[in-house]
């Protein structure tokens, strides 16, 4: 592959940032159009690789490699497979729609878009990197702009939230870094690879000692658990969601949280299958807490964004459930759920941002009957809500169905008396609780008698409809015809499952 398509996808946003850097501050319109154009380049190319990826061949494709620091085994190596390609597509969809969702911002536009685009490059970089050094580097590149974006353009306790989010994610990344370095040193030993490398593929060929696997997987679990976020490491996320400006909330809930799930699967499960088996019961227990607890807490929130924030906690629990079950269906479902949840939650935040921008409040109790004034926003919100509660015909249903079926078919007893199936059933019960809180929010916000107080609100129209239409279209497309997405994911999950099955049968921790 001579055409460096992945590098262009990744660098397009940062190029856009450079162009914006040279534009005058007051040319807001041109700045926004520039951001849109460059993110559109990423989007188009992502769709191109989504279509061009050869699913029957599977494996890592579109590889580019440039040696960088030879004696440390670092090289710039990128490529995508069935796990990362959906995430790349997700990121480009979310950033493209996120730019349009920020169309009505007027406060320090130039800096805002520069940081936003740099952040995006970081996220792309994490997903396409095949070298641990660059994986980590891009991760930090994604993290720092987030702090500034929330701290400067945020709302509701923004400094607190920005600091909390950055600290949590940094702590998490440090755990992961320790595991990465340990793996790097361990694999370089003569009895394994015999040479030092940070190449993710090469490191994946090593069969690590079981004791080491247990240790390293735990580090990865804690590290990426911060990102996912796994209970009780989750409190940064609702606060962060609430404080962040619309586009950042979209990226944050839509993509940044997925870094955790992606890292846990790509590095954790792939390198340490025995470690994953050993710690799976812990993940299973915690993820059920995520699902049920997150959903119940979402039920009593008073701020629209907090509801969505806690619903993310709840939904990411399903991803963890899929990882804990460690079989084809559940892992397919976990990756699909990351994609579906990313789209769905981006839609939620775009809509909430739209309402907030016009009404200057997000307090559910103050709303009511908004469907009279904003029928399109209401329709979009209802669709996002339906996706959230897993209605068939929308992408989330497919993902959740696969996770549930995968988790349900695990025949295992943990802690001596809790069967895994019972946990799966509790997880499935989450869809009932989700339905309850989603419908309550929809009811209190959009339905009911018309309130004169909100008669000045205008419905979404023109450019505001771009994110709504694109995201809903994606949800429906992959909900009605999920085969392209699921087949793609499955081509990435297959080698993973082969590795898990080949791994020694060891009991879980409990």
């Amino acid at each position, binding site marked *: 592959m001579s055409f460096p398509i992945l590098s262009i996808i990744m660098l397009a946003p940062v190029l856009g940032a450079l162009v914006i850097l040279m534009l005058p501050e007051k040319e807001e319109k041109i700045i926004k159009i520039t951001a849109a154009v460059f993110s559109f380049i990423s989007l188009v190319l992502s769709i191109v690789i989504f279509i061009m990826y050869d699913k029957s061949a599977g494996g890592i494709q579109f590889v580019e490699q440039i040696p960088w620091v030879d004696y440390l085994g670092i090289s710039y190596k990128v490529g995508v497979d069935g796990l990362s390609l959906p995430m790349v597509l997700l990121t480009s969809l979310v950033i493209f729609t996120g730019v349009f969702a920020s169309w009505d911002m007027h406060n320090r536009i130039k800096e805002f878009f520069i940081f936003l685009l740099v952040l995006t490059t970081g996220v792309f970089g994490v997903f396409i990197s095949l070298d641990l050094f660059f994986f980590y580097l891009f991760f930090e590149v994604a993290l720092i702009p987030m702090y500034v974006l929330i701290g400067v353009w945020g709302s509701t306790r923004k400094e607190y939230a920005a600091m909390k989010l950055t600290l949590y994610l940094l702590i998490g990344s440090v755990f992961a870094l320790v595991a990465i370095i340990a793996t790097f040193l361990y694999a370089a030993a003569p009895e394994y690879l015999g040479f030092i490398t940070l190449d993710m593929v090469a490191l994946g060929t090593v069969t690590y000692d079981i004791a080491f696997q247990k240790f390293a997987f735990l580090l990865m679990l804690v590290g990426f658990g911060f990102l996912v976020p796994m209970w009780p490491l989750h*409190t940064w996320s609702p606060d962060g969601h609430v404080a962040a400006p619309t586009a950042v909330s979209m990226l944050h809930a839509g993509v940044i949280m997925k870094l955790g799930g992606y890292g846990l699967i790509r590095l954790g499960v792939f390198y340490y299958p025995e470690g994953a088996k050993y710690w799976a019961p812990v993940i299973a227990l915690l993820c059920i807490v995520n699902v049920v607890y997150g959903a119940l807490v979402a039920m009593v929130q008073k701020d629209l964004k907090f509801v969505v924030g806690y619903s993310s906690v709840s939904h990411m629990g399903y991803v963890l459930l899929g990882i804990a079950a460690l079989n084809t269906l559940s892992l397919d479902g976990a990756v699909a759920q990351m994609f579906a949840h990313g789209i769905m939650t981006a839609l939620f935040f775009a809509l909430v941002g739209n309402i907030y921008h016009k009404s200057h409040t997000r307090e559910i109790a103050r709303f009511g009957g908004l469907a009279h004034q904003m029928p399109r926003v209401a329709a979009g919100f209802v669709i996002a809500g339906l996706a959230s*509660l897993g209605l*068939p015909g929308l992408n989330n249903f497919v993902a959740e169905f696969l996770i549930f079926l995968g988790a349900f078919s695990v025949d295992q007893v943990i802690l001596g008396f809790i069967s895994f199936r019972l946990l799966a059933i509790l997880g499935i019960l989450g869809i009932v609780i989700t339905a309850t809180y989603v419908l309550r929010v929809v009811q209190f916000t959009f*339905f*009911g008698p018309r309130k004169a107080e909100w008669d000045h609100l205008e419905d979404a129209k023109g450019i505001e409809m771009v994110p709504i239409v694109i995201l809903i279209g994606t949800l429906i497309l992959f909900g009605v015809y*999920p085969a392209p997405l699921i087949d793609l994911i499955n081509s990435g999950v297959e080698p993973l499952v082969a590795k898990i099955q080949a791994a020694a049968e060891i009991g879980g921790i409990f």
Partner: protein
Amino acid sequence: MIKIAWLLPLLPLLGFVVISFVTKRLKLLSALVAIGTMAASLIISLGIAYEVLRDGVTMESPVEYAVNWLSVPGLTIEAGILIDPLAAVMLIVVCTVALLVDIYSLGYMEGDPGYSRYFSYLSLFGASMLGLVVANNYFQMFFFWELVGLSSYLLIGYYFGRHSAVQANKKAFIANRVADFGFLLGFFYLFLMFGTFNFGELAQAMPAHANSAMLTIAAILVFIGPVGKSAQFPLHVWLPDAMEGPTPVSALIHAATMVAAGVYLVSRQFVLFANAEIALLVVAYVGGFTALFAATIAIVNSDIKRILAFSTLSQLGYMMMALGVGSVTAGMFHLTTHAFFKALLFLGAGSAIHAVHSNSIWKMGGLYKKMPITTWTFVIGTLALAGIFPFAGFWSKDEILLVTRDAGFTGLYILATFVAFLTAFYMFRLIFIAFFGESRSEHEPHESPLSMTVPLLILAVFSIGAGFIGAPFLEKAFWALVYYGKPHHPVPDLLVMAVSTGIALSGILLAWLIYHKKYISAEKIKERFLVVYTILENKYYIDEIYQWFFDKVVLVISSAFNWSDRNLVDGAAHGISDSIRAGGAKLRYIQTGSMQNYALVIFAATILLVIWMAIPVLGGI
């Protein structure tokens, strides 16, 4: 036509898309699109029925074809079509009622600002319902099962400006969600046992596991789905409230078709229940109990639509009971006749409500003079519901009574006969109060427009005639087409017929005495049995119990979790950060700022380092 059965759900879906995006502003065109697509579906359904009869498609040899919808290792999900007589009957019922309701709505929804939205929802419902009927596997069934739930949600909340409407649609969705949770687990268990969702393949594999514990669990879990969708006790609470939707919707979705989907599901894969005896008993007794339970509530209600809703509950219970005692034929037969006469009753009620602008039967009265067509078609529907010869309900209800008695469920037989009495009583109470006697309306009632009365007349014809398709004296009738196992020709039992007719007539007589001639005072009875009356009036307080559970248990737990999230989980995080900060505050005093201190420390440290490094050289300690 069977070859193009896949068009059935697609046509209304197309209608939905066209109405939503193209004809939204052109109200009449929207309605015509909805009617046109539904009419096309009806034609296809009739064609399918014709081919089923012509080609001798039976329950054992259905026509099935499918494509792979999703395929990953270990799981193949099909999108398929399964046509057998059962599906053919259901298709005709759904398409006919849906088309008539569409036409009726032309007049009923006249001038409503959401005209196009209404018809787009109706089309969406049509698409989901037809997709459900032709499904050939559990996954597809569940897929459309939830989508009909969505359409129902949207239509109940059609008047989204009304608090009661949005309260009701939320309730409907959540009750159905609880049920679908069970349904989902049920067919997960089936998948776990047999590795497939396909009805045919499951039917092949099941007998080997007859009455095993796992199959019984699976069957009971699957049955929870119908309990919700067909509003059986204890998940029945949503249906009466669902009457907040426009009346034609109540007729179509909450009386004739969607709520019958539960009955259809149980019939669709009856082999599952036939191989799980305990589950079958559960079906029978849940159905029987619901029949009685709902009928008793209907006696005291005064909202015309709610009376009909409780009667729907009761009749659905009947159908379930018929299935539970092992007769798919009787259950589906009653489903068919019920669909017609109950749709008729609801549309008639809609016509009456349209005229007097109130749901309360006490605000009506004497309508027979002003609205003859509505009144007399309503009476026909009521006679059919009460099971009076030769109306449709007579044949199907008798068959249920007959199979229940023959299967040895004497208790259920007596219960069902008693319910027949209650049914006749409360329906004629309604008739005498609302349509006869003196007028109590504040408005001047007038007969409804043609688009509303024509569907009433057509349905009235069906309500009289539909029973004959299953009349026991016919040689080749309904029972020869729709059955489980082998066709069972019902032998007409004059005793059962006589008893049920007699008891229905006595119910009518009692209603006539109390509410028309007023020989017996309703007030006196009410005072005499005040406790019973209060309980019935409050629907056995089931709604209150659920409300209490939600408010006092779920919300309290939620608040507790919310508190713990803010205080315990976040508290721990803050604790860590605060202790680091406090530690720093203490440690900062090490930093004196005096250069000489620093130099001293550096020097001392250097000396210590040198000593430590020198230890090996000097031979160790």
